[in-house]
């Protein structure tokens, strides 16, 4: 019963993936947590997708054009069949959009698509979407929209469909043992060509140490979720490789300008000066992540490279704290087990050195989210964040985080609001970029947050597996190869 390394030779039929958890739903229109996403996106095709460079490229749609700022027309492929043999038609695309945007369906992803107010079949291979207002992020959102077969869903009903999903993607769901593993089999007639592995098994292994042990013993071929420290003892293992990629997440410190000592801009500035981001990256993160100066990564649209953040300058920080009369001020820091403890502790020490006393308030993740989105008092003065909109666009990041009136924003700045509002309603990329540069400058000057670094996603794989991970943490088995 041992899947020893010996078996891993020659042709590789089965790829075994260790994920930290099981798929929550196979139905791509329901949950979109990383685990579910990693699995079901191998079963479905999307209207558009991203290439390894991050560019939005055709998938089911071959081409698209705006007929006016709120109307976009997609031309579709006609050679795609679902794995049950039926054809993927424009009606399926429209059905998928209407399904996920139907409030009665209660899709957790609804808010990503609720700008779409109409979807119609406008030709034998054409669909047309209309949005409420000009919506520049539409394509980026559609990257995440999987196309489901209307006939099957309607026949089975939502609940049964979730159990036995069926799509047009490279793999077909073969079995799903809840909480244990799900197994996919190659879709023989896949339109993009032959799949690299006959079978792919995704196993749920919550503990990272166990996942690493699995890959070391060949029980699994790849796993994700390593921290930089985990990689150190693996360096010398000849059978293994560590893969890493900078993701679209920025690990940052949220500062609450609405309450307490952080109401004073000088204190916020002092915090910015007090944190030695390079030391954290080099010593704690072993150089895996890249430093971030703005609240966005290069992987996303809207990123600007010319708004440098405040430099590490503890002396200046001390002076600012003194100036603000905040020496010894207590700074409550909201956190949950989901956030890197070591970064928090390092920050605590660094702020301690300039005279600010950080005290942690640890809550569990649901409570963290509730408080972080609650009143400024509930959100406390500081918190770590690792934001991802999975849309790779500034609008999905700084708008909800800082725009007045957003649940998350405790920051309010009219000029900033104007900039992000404007960037939201134009399709002109140059113009949007200008607005975002303005917005980032305001965020920097007001120190609404301290961007720390661009997160790295670290994978451990058997040496033979060839694959380039992408910033959006997608997990397309189709893009992998086994080279013994």
């Amino acid at each position, binding site marked *: *019963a041992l899947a020893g390394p010996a078996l891993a030779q020659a042709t590789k039929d089965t790829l075994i993936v260790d994920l930290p958890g099981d798929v*929550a739903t196979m139905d791509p229109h329901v*949950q979109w947590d990383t685990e579910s996403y990693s699995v079901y996106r191998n079963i479905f095709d999307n209207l558009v997708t991203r290439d390894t460079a991050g560019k939005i490229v055709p998938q089911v749609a071959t081409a698209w054009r705006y007929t006016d700022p709120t109307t976009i027309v997609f031309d579709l492929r006609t050679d795609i069949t679902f794995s049950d043999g039926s054809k993927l038609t424009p009606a399926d695309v429209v059905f998928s959009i209407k399904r996920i945007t139907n409030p009665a369906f*209660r899709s957790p*992803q609804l808010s990503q698509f609720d700008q779409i107010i109409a979807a119609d079949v406008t030709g034998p291979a054409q669909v047309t979407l209309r949005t409420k207002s000009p919506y520049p992020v539409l394509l980026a959102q559609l990257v995440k929209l999987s196309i489901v077969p209307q006939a099957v869903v309607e026949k089975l009903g939502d609940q049964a469909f979730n159990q036995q999903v069926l799509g047009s993607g490279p793999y077909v769901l073969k079995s799903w043992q809840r909480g244990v593993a799900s197994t996919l089999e190659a879709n023989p007639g896949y339109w993009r060509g032959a799949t690299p592995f006959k079978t792919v098994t995704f196993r749920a292994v919550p503990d990272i140490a166990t996942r690493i042990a699995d890959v070391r*013993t060949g029980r699994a071929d790849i796993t994700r979720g390593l921290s930089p420290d985990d990689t150190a003892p693996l360096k010398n293992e000849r059978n293994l490789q560590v893969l890493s990629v900078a993701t679209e997440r920025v690990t940052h410190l949220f500062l609450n300008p609405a309450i307490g000592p952080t109401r004073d801009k000088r204190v916020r500035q002092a915090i910015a000066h007090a944190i030695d981001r390079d030391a954290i990256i080099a010593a704690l993160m072993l150089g895996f992540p890249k430093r971030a100066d703005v609240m966005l990564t290069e992987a996303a649209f809207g990123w600007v490279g010319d708004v440098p953040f405040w430099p590490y300058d503890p002396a200046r920080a001390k002076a600012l704290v003194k100036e603000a009369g905040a020496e010894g001020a207590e700074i409550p820091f909201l956190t949950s087990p989901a956030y890197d403890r070591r970064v928090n502790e390092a920050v605590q020490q660094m702020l301690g050195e300039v005279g600010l006393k950080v005290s942690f308030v640890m809550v569990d993740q649901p409570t963290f989210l509730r408080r972080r989105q609650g009143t400024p008092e509930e959100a406390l003065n500081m918190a770590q964040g690792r*934001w991802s909109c999975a849309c790779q666009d500034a609008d999905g990041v700084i708008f909800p985080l800082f725009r007045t009136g957003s649940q998350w924003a405790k920051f309010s700045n009219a000029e900033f609001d104007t900039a992000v509002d404007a960037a939201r309603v134009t399709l002109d990329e140059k113009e949007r970029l200008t607005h975002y540069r303005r917005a980032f400058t305001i965020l920097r000057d007001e120190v609404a947050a301290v961007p720390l670094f661009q997160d790295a996603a670290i994978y451990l794989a058997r040496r033979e597996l060839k694959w380039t991970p992408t910033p959006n943490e997608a997990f397309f088995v189709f893009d992998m190869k086994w080279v013994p």
Partner: protein
Amino acid sequence: MIRLLAGRLLQAAVASFGVLTIVFFVMRLSGDPTLLLVPEGASAEQVAQLRAALGFDRPLVVQYAAYLGDLLRLDLGESLVQRAPVAGIVGERIPYTLALAGGALLVALGIGIPAGILMAVHRGGLLERALAALVLAGQSLPTFWSGILLILFFGVYLGWLPTSGADSPASLIMPAIALGALTMSTFARMARISVLDELSRDYVTAARARGLSVWAAVSRHVLRNAAIPVVTIAALEIGNLLAGAVIVETVFAWPGIGQLAIQSIQARDFLVVQTVVLFVSSVYIAMNLLADLAYAAIDPRIRGRS
């Protein structure tokens, strides 16, 4: 006996109801899962809309009544997160949980009871001390640590046992040992105490005066008498083995209900948590009933009382 059982069942029903009520309200106090279900950028209206659609905007008492109503109709509901019937979600985990609990119990009983008996019979001797150290060692290491040491040693370095998962009988060995170790000490101590207790009784001396050897007296007379407290403990421990195995299940990626419960608590998947707790408390109660039956099987005094 029948009256006793009926009485126990009634008490059990009350206890289950208590468990459900506690868990229902504690869970609700911890906040609802709406925010976990929406993308990070969702607006306040979108959140409120989903909350209303899920029914979490109703007063708690109304939600509680609705839940009890469903329960009476034997409807355990649908998981918010997985969009699947809770009965199925929990049900699929139960075989694994039972396998793990059974394996752990086997380890615990198989090692703990003989060790306890040996310790009692060799009281004060070197063997007792050696066994005591072994038994207590099982209870003095955090599972999350001993678990990873087991994995590294038997899984990675020796390559004897699978490092994770639940796909072969071999996968069960390490988790069962890690989980059983804790319970093993409980059983060993209990067995030691009750055997010691029995050994000091006159009937043992009397049996030896009839020419029985110590071991004959132990096997023919003492063990049955010492069994009752051990049965009681076994019944109590099984509940803990079922859903208390959270850490072992996490470390060994064992898909039991303990892990499910923790994940569901963290996801505020109320109905799943409630169902797990309902299941565990039913098993606990069933075990206690079984223990009562076992007493009767062991002890003619109880049998005679019917």
